[in-house]
């Protein structure tokens, strides 16, 4: 009984840590390149967030399912292969079903492969954990990244309509810094309370 509650708490923790305490974008500061390049508008931010979420979940699941067969000496190249395959597949998926959107963000989908959040979750978590936690971890980190992309995109689109710099890369840095500051502020308030 106690074992069960502790597992379900673990699951919840596995899922939610990626969204808040270990959010890839604003806590671990991973994957900033796509973050700043693509978060120019709400729509592109959201779309790239969804693409990243799909890749990270699929990768975590496959890596976890095959973790016994990956020879540790070739684990990294195997992970890179898996990630590349899913990024390619998601690229095709967008081209087939969201063709209009693809015109705007298509350039950046292949760049998901360079997002170190994905490799780091596959290597640090999925290759050492069973299927369900691996999926939850992927969902948590993917959604965490998606939220940051979407919020950044919305802020930059709103501000950028009047203020050009917000839609240029420096504007992305300012908006991201604002989000990180906000999170730190919340954390210190939590600690003080």
């Amino acid at each position: 009984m106690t074992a069960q509650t502790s597992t379900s708490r673990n699951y919840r923790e596995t899922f939610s840590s990626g969204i808040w305490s270990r959010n890839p974008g604003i806590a671990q500061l991973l994957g900033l390149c796509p973050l700043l390049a693509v978060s120019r508008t709400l729509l592109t931010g959201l779309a790239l967030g969804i693409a990243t979420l799909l890749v990270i979940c699929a990768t975590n699941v496959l890596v976890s399912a095959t973790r016994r067969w990956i020879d540790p000496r070739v684990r990294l190249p195997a992970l890179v292969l898996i990630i590349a395959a899913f990024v390619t597949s998601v690229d095709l998926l967008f081209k087939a079903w969201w063709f209009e959107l693809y015109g705007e963000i298509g350039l950046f989908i292949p760049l998901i492969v360079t997002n170190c959040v994905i490799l780091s979750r596959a290597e640090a978590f999925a290759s050492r954990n069973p299927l369900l936690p691996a999926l939850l971890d992927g969902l948590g980190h993917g959604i965490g990244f998606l939220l940051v992309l979407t919020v950044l995109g919305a802020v930059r689109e709103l501000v950028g309509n009047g203020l050009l710099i917000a839609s240029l890369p420096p504007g992305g840095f300012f908006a991201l810094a604002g989000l990180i500051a906000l999170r730190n502020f919340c954390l210190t308030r939590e600690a003080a309370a």
Partner: protein
Amino acid sequence: MSEQEKELGMPARAGRPAWQAVLSLAAFAALVGLVVGVAWDATRERIADNEARRVLAELSAVLPPALYDNEPHRDMILVSWPGDEQRQVWRARRDGRPVAAVLTSLAPDGYSGQIRLLVAVTTDGTILGVRVATHSETPGIGDAIEPRKSPWIGNFAGRSLTDPPEARWRLRKDGGDLDAISGATITSRAVVAATRRAVQYFRQHRDEIFAAPASGAANKPRD
């Protein structure tokens, strides 16, 4: 955690021979190839459709739909222009008879990079319209070749190699009869020359263009 790792995590295999590592990586390459293959197969029809529809939208900007009754975006051939790669030509027909063609023309000599044009010409050599498909000219200067920035690109409609005469198919400041976009002489010069080349090519090759059997992915019957 470490217990769980021992139970479910990766067994230590470092002592095994190297060929096992190679084999394991090869197996993953095969698995991953399968994933991509399935995704490719599941999406290729829709992707081909999407691309055909985009081409149709591009074509209808220069080709009045009332003119033809075939599907020009599926009636495409590849032709080779002297000195560069193959280019696409779409054919518009009515009652099976040729009425017009849309040629892609490249201007390599823009202010920054290539300008890709679509030039629609009727069988008698009159220009129906010219549109810029892709370019990277300076925003605010050279981008006046886009119809939403300036009506300039519309000046070509109705012209042919006799209007103005071929020798005067150049900018006024180069001794011709055509206006430049002010402040964007280089861009205008490149577009004028590329348009002229397209019409000249069409005049020389008109009969082959309409006689050639359709080619390219967009024309293949669905399998």
